[in-house]
Each structure stands twice: as C-alpha cells, then as structure tokens.
C-alpha cells in the first residue's frame, strides 16, 4: 500500500462491509418474543413496566413494547 489515503479508504470500506446486518422489519418475530427482554423474568418485567408506564404516564419511556421488534 503506497499512500496513507488509500489505506484509510480501504479501512473505511472494510469497516462498512463487515460485521453489520440489518434485521428487516418482517424478520423480527423472534426478537419480539418477550423472552428477548434482558431480564431474569421477562414476562414479569413486561407487566411491571406496563403498570409503571400507566402510573407515571410514561408509555414508551422504557423502550419497546416487547423484546425488540422495533414496531412503529
């Protein structure tokens, strides 16, 4: 590799092509499962958050409605 800009460019191109994959909205069935909630008792946490949301008027403040379907 002769010059610095070429190296930087190559690095940039490689960094954008590896390691990332977009999960399409129609592929998020498994992600939306409550089991994907990062907690020991995901279902209990869902219920707790639901109560908290309505008590505090903060729906959506704690993230998605379920595991991570990213539903609009």
């Amino acid at each position, binding site marked *: 590799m002769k010059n610095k800009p*070429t190296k930087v*460019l190559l690095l940039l191109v490689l960094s954008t092509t590896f390691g990332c994959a977009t999960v399409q*909205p*129609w592929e998020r069935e498994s992600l939306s*499962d409550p089991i994907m909630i990062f907690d020991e008792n995901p279902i209990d946490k869902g219920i707790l958050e639901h109560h908290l949301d309505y008590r505090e008027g903060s729906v959506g403040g704690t993230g998605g*409605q*379920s595991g991570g379907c990213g*539903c*609009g």
Partner: protein
Amino acid sequence: MTKQNIFSILIFTFFIFTNSFAQKVGEKAPNFIGTNFEEQEIKLEDFKDKVVLIDFWASWCSPCRKEMPFLVELHEKFKDKNFEIIAINIDQKESKAKSFLKKLETKPSFPMIWDKDSKIPPKYELETMPTTYLIGKNGNIRFIHKGFKDSYKEEFLKELEVLLNEK
C-alpha cells in the same frame, strides 16, 4: 489516487449503505400474488380501479394488533364505496394469526393474505411494522403510514375521502 477520487468513492460508499429503496408516494404499487388461510389466491391486480389499503401486520407486533380493529371499522364504513383492504399477515405460524383474529370483536371481512415466508414485504421494502399503503384508483401509492397511533385515524379518514372522490 487523487483527493477527488477518494471523495467520490466515499460518497458512493455512503449512498450504497444508507440509501433507502423503500416504495415512495407516487410510485406504482408493486403487484403481488398471495394466498389466504384457505389457500385461495389473492392478487393486487384483481382490485384495479378500486381504492386499496394494503396493511402489513403480524400478531407479534403490538401496534399492528392495535390497528386491526380500526381497519375492520374502516372497511365496514367504506366497503360499498369502491374501497378494499388487503391485509398481509407475516406470522410464521398460522395458529398465532388465527388466535389473534379470533379475539377480535368484529372479524375482518376483507381479503387476508398469509405470507409465512415474507415474500411480499421485500417488494415494498418495509421500514417498520405495521406499514399501511393507500393505493389510488390508478394503482399508484398515494399515502403511506408507518406504525400506528390513534391520531392516525383522522388522517386515514381524510385521505380516504380524497381518494374515493377522485375519478
């Protein structure tokens, strides 16, 4: 390599990875063929000259579940006015979709495609679930709703009136 070349490649790379190819307002709605839960064929082109609402939904998607009773209501109100809804369900298990539909107070009477292999969503390049497309009588996409909120209901009604009054 000149600075100009480097800049061009950077711009090209940026657009390759960020450009959205989603269907846009004004474009022709891509045709699709699917089957309902009873394995009867449903095609978009069968609804030519009608105002069509295409809704992509799944039982695992919370706003989709919220939207469905509204769509049923909308269909009941406008079905005699050259209006049709095609709901495209992308649940992998038929039982999950059916179990949700069973719980609805009023059952949908509009065509419902079960697209278990998600072959139709890539044609529309959905960006979120649910996405609802309002197709004009000429087959062009006229309005797109991403997600669902109660405040969208008013918008849907206004947009539908515009489309139904067009020749």
